[in-house]
């Protein structure tokens, strides 16, 4: 995680806040997969992906979330997406993922959802 290109912060012992920046695409998606996979090694871990700065997400970016979410869920945790712009939300809607993934409007709502 020390080498992660993303801004990260532990909000609680079990909840990692991740800001992917402006782009989540083929060039940084592998690092996102690694970051989430490492976090999922411990039980009951949550990742909050705060997308407030995210301007572009590619299929590889979506894949980095979709392909790791079950690792967390099967270990008692989850990925919570928040602060999506209308265009980013549109991508997840087009791919029919808004109901499958956990999505909240704000970071506070995401944090609440982690421990509800």
């Amino acid at each position, binding site marked *: 995680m020390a080498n992660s290109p993303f801004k990260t912060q532990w909000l609680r012992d079990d909840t990692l806040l991740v800001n992917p920046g402006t782009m989540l695409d083929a*060039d940084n998606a592998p690092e996102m997969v690694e970051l989430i996979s490492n976090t999922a090694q411990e039980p009951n871990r949550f990742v909050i992906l705060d997308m407030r700065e995210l301007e572009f997400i590619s*299929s590889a970016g979506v894949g*980095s979330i979709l392909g*790791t979410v079950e*690792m967390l869920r099967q270990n008692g945790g989850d990925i919570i997406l928040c602060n999506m712009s209308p*265009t980013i939300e549109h991508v997840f809607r087009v*791919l029919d993922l808004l109901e499958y993934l956990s999505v909240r409007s704000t970071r506070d709502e995401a944090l609440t959802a982690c421990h509800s």
Partner: protein
Amino acid sequence: MNANPDIKRAPSAVIAVSEELSKSARDRFSAELKEILAAAPEQVSLDCTRLTQVASSHIQYLWEAHEACARSRVRLVLTHVPRGLWRVLQVLDLAHLFSSDSESQKSRFETEFVSGESGISDAMALFTHYLEDKALPETTEFDLRALFYEVASNIRFHSDAHESLPVKFFAEIADNRIEMVFRDMGSEFDPTAAASEIDMQEAAQKGQTRGFGLLMIRKLADKVEYRRIEGTTNELILSKRLDG
């Protein structure tokens, strides 16, 4: 060609090209072109208004003018280019040889890029600038950028020719629809032949992190067409309505 072409002497000259295809018409065109170039104009303009039905001979006229002007180091400009003519020039890979002040060119974007990280990034920035000028709805503009990125990335990661030969990309907006054309010289690959649907929940269960690009292309574009050209070139054509 036109029996009475509108010829203006230097600094610029205009030939109003007619649709005639007879040998005498071709001879007149050649003679007019030669006469104009003898006056050493700064620019020759071919008014293509009448070329609404395009035949190979018309293309030969344009090619002859291109070659003659190049030899004389005179700028050649096509004016009032009907969309069909411009499309034929694109298909024949000749459009880049001509300057045009036509409406079709104003709505057209064209670039070449090497499909590495920086090449895709630079080309996408140019394409984004082109889209921003069109003042499209935000999600539509995003979709078009995403389509460009997904196809370019697919070529980057799966083509065996990406490091040696640039990818050609054209986009044209007409009748509230955009058409995006990608040409690369990699091995034959027909994305329309790939599986059309992916069960995303099943993919998640399997921990699949890649392989969603073609699905995204299909979801974001209204139409995806592929053809192999002359055994050397992959051509992928995406089209999408612009009104959401």
